């Protein structure tokens, strides 16, 4: 009787808070945004970036068991204001689904925004492609004033909410699932 309680209640209820706080405090930054470039082409800003994804063993294992992993690229643009908080002028989330196809032993990457899909023989290749963002239209030039100063923010993370329910609870409190990059920020205009 005690064992199931220990297995369920303790990790969920007691350990939850502890691990949650320890995650928040000492989470290893597994994702890393190394460079972001913004080009103005036809009055639209196109974003190119290079992101280094490093998945934990548990995530890889879960993925190999057929559970898709959703990676989200959060991009925000804020207008910097002197006396008030920064105003959000644009925000978009680019979502990618990464899954393992057991029959063909291929890794499939699906862009959930566009629906396009690519398959890769190895995970490294898939992650490299996932980490290479080329000419992603993010911002209309009309939204920006000439005088204004703007801040661009970008972050890559694994969306735990997309996991199957039983896994989700564990994922919320497990450092293996707490995979995110720091907010990468740059100013506009350069």
């Amino acid at each position: 009787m005690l064992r199931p309680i220990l297995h369920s209640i303790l990790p969920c209820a007691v350990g939850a808070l502890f691990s949650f706080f320890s995650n928040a405090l000492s989470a290893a930054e597994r994702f890393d945004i190394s460079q972001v470039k913004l080009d103005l082409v036809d009055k639209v800003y196109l974003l190119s970036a290079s992101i280094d994804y490093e998945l934990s063993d548990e995530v890889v294992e879960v993925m190999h068991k057929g559970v898709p992993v959703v990676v989200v690229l959060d991009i925000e643009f804020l207008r910097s204001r002197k006396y008030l908080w920064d105003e959000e002028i644009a925000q978009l989330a680019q979502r990618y689904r990464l899954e393992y196809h057991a029959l063909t032993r291929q890794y499939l990457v699906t862009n959930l925004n566009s629906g396009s899909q690519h398959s890769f023989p190895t995970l490294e290749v898939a992650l490299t492609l996932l980490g290479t963002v080329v000419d992603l239209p993010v911002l209309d030039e009309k939204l920006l004033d000439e005088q204004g100063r703007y801040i661009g923010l970008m972050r890559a993370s694994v969306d735990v909410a997309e996991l199957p329910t039983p896994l989700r609870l564990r994922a919320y409190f497990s450092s293996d699932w707490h995979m995110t990059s720091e907010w990468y920020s740059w100013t506009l205009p350069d």
Partner: protein
Amino acid sequence: MDIARLRRLGSGAIPVALLSLLLLLSLFLMSAATQNSEQFGRLYMLLLVINLAGLVALLLLITSNLLRLRRQYRNRATGSRLTVRLMVMFVVLALAPVSLVYYFSLGFIQRGIDSWFDVRVERTLEDALELSRASLETRSRELMKRTEQMGEKLKFVDEPSLPRLLDELRISESASELTLFMGGGHVVASSSDNPVDIVPNLPNESVIRQVRQSGSGYVSLDPLSDDGLYVRAVVELPAATPLVDARFLQALYPISDRVSVLAGSVESAYTQYQQLLLLRDPLKNSFTLMLSLVLLLGVLMAVWLAFFSARRFVTPVRVLAIGTRAVAAGDYTKRLPMHSGDELGFLVESFNDMTRKIGHAQDEARDSQHQAEQERAYLWAVLARLSSGVLTLDMRRTVYTVNVAAGHILGVESKACIGYELDEIVERYEYLKNFANVITPHLTGSGSEAKREGKGDWREEVIFYGAKGRQVLMCGGAALPGDGGYVIVFDDVTNLVQAQRDAAWGEVARRLAHEIKNPLTPIQLSAERLRHKYLKLMPAEDAVVLDKSTHTIVQQVEVMKEMVQAFSEYARTPKLERCPLELNHLIDEVLDLYRHNRFGVTIRTSLQQGLPQVSADSGRMRQLLHNLIKNALEAMDGGDATISITTRAFSERGVSMVELQIADNGPGIPDELLENIFEPYVTAKPKGSGLGLAIVKKIVEEHSGVIWAENLETGACMTIRLPTVQSDLEETAAAEIEEAEIAAISFKQQQQGGEKA
């Protein structure tokens, strides 16, 4: 809305019902969610949070209730003990079955989920997947060979004719897409069975790198989500000259629908099973968590309801306890609120009825007590204004009441006597000994005994020498009914007795004068006439006899006249003219007459200076001194007779007095006469009227004084005590004060009586 109402709302039945309903609803939703996995996913986290919040709220409620109960228990609040016992009972009753159900449910969940998994199913699925893979790989290898053959054909074809050749090859080899491209990804030529696809589906760089490095072709199965499975084959077409980059040919072959569907279903079954395997423990944990939540919710609800119902149950008991305490504290006006129509309600009603009746009885008792007090006050008022002294004693001879007149007559402070035994009072006021000796024999037996034995009232005369001098009291008494003690009523009849005696002696004197003195003159005249007429005629012998006889008659008549005169002197009661008098001064005046040593006597005086004045008739006092000194002189038979006169002032029990002592060095008074030396015609001397000391005593008594005689070693001594002027004044003042204190004394006694009751 005030705080009390809020609190009542917080502990009432409505919030309990609401919260229970809410929690039950969330639990129902939760159980519904576990039935349907899709809903489960959507609601799980939300429900978890809601339920946890509910749990926390319940915990807080219970904790606050527990703290309150603990505080009440510590303060020994009414009903807290019963509440605790009920609480514990309810909780134990709720916990036992819930724990059992929880234990077995956990087992069911563990075994239920485990039963989904079977090693054979897992093995079979893996085998199926392997089979699919093997079959597809065979197919892939074939297609690879055909692609290599196509590559051979295309190796040396010119660029312009490539599109046409690619189309032909694609159709002949039943490929869906053929693309010829450079190493850098530049498409040389392409052919697709779908004209919409303008951009060919190129392999990624790693594939090209692999082909380039290995030198052989690359083949793989690609799952394209829309179009099912494809076989992707890439071969390198070596360049004709080293200057030109190598080209690559990629061919995409669709797998037939049937095979694709079969392989897809095998794949999805395998994946699902793998997922299930992966989720086995988390699923168990989720169910266990759910069950634990349900259990916790149930238990906490039960605990809270236990609190709630225990408090509701205990409320009438607590109210009763509070009411009982109020009654014990003497508050009979308390009415308890009715709560229910059950046995407890009946109890409360009976209690109310009881307190109402007790309250009535209490009121009646208070009324009668008030009446008794009034009667007592009335009695006291009457007693206070009575000229007779009234004294009551209880069975142990403790003084219970003394009225003002009694204190006045006995010369005691009535207030200071109440509550003391008779013996104690006699110790304090020794002169009351005589009084006590007279009444004590009558203070036996209770009123009822006295009635039974036929002993009724008694009357007796008491004479004692008190603060005011010699007093004659007429006492009467009786035992009070029941064990009420004794009542003694007495009047100061000193003056009355004196007046009666004076009147009696006056009557005697008048008669004597009339009956004796009147005939004396004719007797004397007759005797003188006989003598005068017959003495000359008689012979000498007879004349001698006659002369002698008549002489004797005349002489004796003379003596008789003197005697009658002295007696009428004694019996005469001239009106006293009292005025403040310096006793020393008077003594000096009187002694001047005796200082010429005519009597051969030495007179010593020891007079205290500044003696207080006495209220006295100076003529009578002069007579008193003469009589005493003369008496002393007569008592001493010559020799060196010495008379010493002493005066002093002293105060005894608040009464200021002057004392006068006249002592001689004679033989003293014979013991047999000492008792009644002051009575008329009692004398130790051969001559004298026998009235000297009687007159002295009369004068002393007229002045409210005391006189006694005693034999000292040197001789007889007479002591006189007279009250001073101030002492009289003080007495009247004291009487007035006492009167004012009557009310206070009576009040105190009522209180004592009340306490005894």
